[in-house]
């Protein structure tokens, strides 16, 4: 019976990171929503305004972290959900690969966008 279980211990780290990112996200997501819908109304968003915010290094870093945390949290959540539903074997590996590629793409694209917003020269 016991041999049915693999000996390495996945999940534990993922589980913890899911909680840590969640805790971080609560704060930032609330801030983000508040900022863009209540302080600055979404309808009034302009590139100039965005640029002004992004040029602040603190804000920039926060947003990048927000992106990474959100992506990890969301993608890891989706992955866990699928695994919990009984995904295994090659299928599982394929899904993991696709998700990792998608997240990396999302993060790269996101950072690229943020840099553009901040007015950093992109080659």
């Amino acid at each position, binding site marked *: 019976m016991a041999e049915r279980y693999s000996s390495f211990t996945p999940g534990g780290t993922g589980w913890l990171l899911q*909680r840590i990112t969640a805790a971080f*996200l609560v704060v930032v*997501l609330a801030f983000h929503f508040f900022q863009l819908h209540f302080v600055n109304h979404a*309808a009034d968003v*302009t*590139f*100039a305004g965005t640029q002004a915010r992004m040029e602040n290094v603190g804000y920039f870093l926060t947003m990048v972290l927000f992106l990474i945390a959100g992506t990890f949290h969301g993608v890891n*959540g989706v992955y866990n959900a699928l695994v919990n539903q009984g995904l295994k074997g090659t299928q599982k590996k394929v899904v993991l690969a696709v998700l990792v590629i998608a997240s990396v793409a999302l993060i790269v*694209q996101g950072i690229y966008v943020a840099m553009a917003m901040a007015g950093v020269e*992109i080659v």
Partner: protein
Amino acid sequence: MSQSYNRGLIEDFGRWKEFSAGMWAWIFHKFTGWMLIGYLFTHIAVLSTAVGAASGDASLVASGDDIYTTTIQGLESLFIVRVLEVGLLAVAVFHILNGLRLLMVDLGVGLDAQDKSFYASLVLTAIITVASVPTFLDGVTL
């Protein structure tokens, strides 16, 4: 030997009438989680127009006619987008509140009140959503 009698998928989900608070919380949390990650991808896609704005004509940016600004403002002028935004808010607020509930559960705090805290997240979500409707629908017409 015993024969397997498969009571089917409904066994898991068809019994929704018999679900308890914890199960509903689980289902809603999943649902909202998926919505949020879906939105995150879309969001970044939309924001990507900023790249166009940044590399475009600086005067357009100054006058607020750059592609980024027009895209966003164009979207924001649609009533349906505003409604979707309210939906997104609801989803996010529930996910946050229930997420907090789950974090508490993970820390072993207030387990006895887990069903109450779920109902509380629902109610709070509803209140916050309703309260923010005016802000969200401000300045848009059908």
